[in-house]
C-alpha cells in the first residue's frame, strides 16, 4: 500500500495534469475575464487610445466602435470592430 502510494506520488509530481495546474489554468482564464469586467473604465480608456492612434491613419466612425474581450474555449481575445469611413491621404504622422 505504502509503496504504491509512494510510487504514485513520485510519478505524479512531474505531471502537468496535477490538479493544482488545472486549477491555475482555469483561474488564469476566468480572471482575465473577471478583471476586464471589474473595470469597464479600462476598456473605455483603451478605446480612446485606439481612436487616437487609428485616427492618424484613417477616418473612423468613433460612435460605432466596439471593443470587447471575448472568452473562448482556452483563450481570451481582444476583439475590436472599427468601421472605417475613409483613408487619409497623408498617412505618416508627425
Amino acid at each position, binding site marked *: *500500500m*505504502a509503496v504504491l*502510494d509512494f510510487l504514485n*506520488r513520485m510519478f*505524479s*509530481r512531474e*505531471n502537468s495534469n*496535477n*490538479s*493544482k*495546474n488545472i*486549477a*491555475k489554468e*482555469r*483561474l*488564469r482564464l*476566468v*480572471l482575465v475575464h*473577471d*478583471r476586464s469586467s*471589474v*473595470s469597464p473604465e479600462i476598456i473605455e480608456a483603451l478605446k480612446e487610445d485606439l481612436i487616437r492612434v487609428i485616427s492618424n491613419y484613417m477616418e473612423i466612425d468613433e460612435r460605432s466602435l466596439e471593443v470587447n474581450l471575448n472568452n473562448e474555449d482556452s483563450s481570451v481575445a481582444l476583439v475590436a470592430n472599427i468601421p472605417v469611413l475613409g483613408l487619409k491621404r497623408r498617412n505618416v504622422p508627425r
Partner: protein
Amino acid sequence: MGEVMVITSGKGGVGKTTTTANIGTGLASLGYKVVLVDTDIGLRNLDVVMGLENRIVYDIVDVTSGQVSYSKALIKDKRFPDGRLNLLPAAQTKDKTAVNQAQMQKLCEDLKKEFDFVLIDCPAGIEQGFKNAIAGAEKAIVVTTPEVSAIRDADRIIGLLEAGGLRNPRLIINRLRPAMVKQGDMMSIEDMVDILAIDVLGVVPEDDTIVISTNKGEPAVLDDNSRAGQAYRNITRRLTGADVPLMNLEVSEGLFDKVRKIFGMGR
C-alpha cells in the same frame, strides 16, 4: 491615532472571523489597545468565536444610530484584565441597510482616537455590507484559501478595494495543507501570489486546533501548542512592523506517521 484595518475576502467561510479574532487577540497579547468591530449585521459571529456572546447588551446599530455611545456598547474581554481588548458586536435582528457608509466612517474616526488597532470584520459578498465595512478603513487584509473559488473572489475583492481607495491590501492564505501542496494537488503560496499579485501577510496551515478553539470560544493565538496559533502570532508581529519570516510548513513524515499509514490509520 490608531489604525483602521478591514479583514475581508469576498467568499464566505474562508476564515475572516477567525482571522479577525486571532489577530485582535494577538495584538492585545502584545500590549496594544484593540477593538474588533463585527459588521456582519444579521449574521453575527465574531462574538461566539471570541466567547463573548453572553455579554452583549448593545450592538453596532445602537451606536451608529446614536442611541448609545460606543463605550457603552463595547464588550471588554476579561482575558485581558486592563480592558485592552474590546468587541463591538453586530446587530442580529436588523439587516445591512441599518448602517450606512458615513456612519461607519464616523465610528472608525471615533474608535481610532482611543484604540491602537480598529479591526473590522467584513461580511461576505460585495454589496452594502462590504461597502460599509471598508468605508472607514485605511488598510485591508484579504483572506483566501487555496481554492479556485476563494481566489477568484479574492481577486475581485482586491479590485474593489483598490477602486475604493484601499491600495496594497495584504494577503492571508488560510487553511493551507502542505502535504497536498507537496503532492501538486493544492496551489502553493507562490502560485497564489503569482495570480493575485499582492504581498503575503501570512500563511495559516489547516489545523484541528482551530475547530477546538472555536468550540471553546478561545482564540487559538493564545494556545502555545497550536500551529495555526503560531501562524497568527507571526502575523500579529508583522502587523506591528516586525520582520518575521514565513513559518516552515515543510511536511516531514515522522516515524509515527509512517507507522500509522502502514496500518491504515491515516487521518
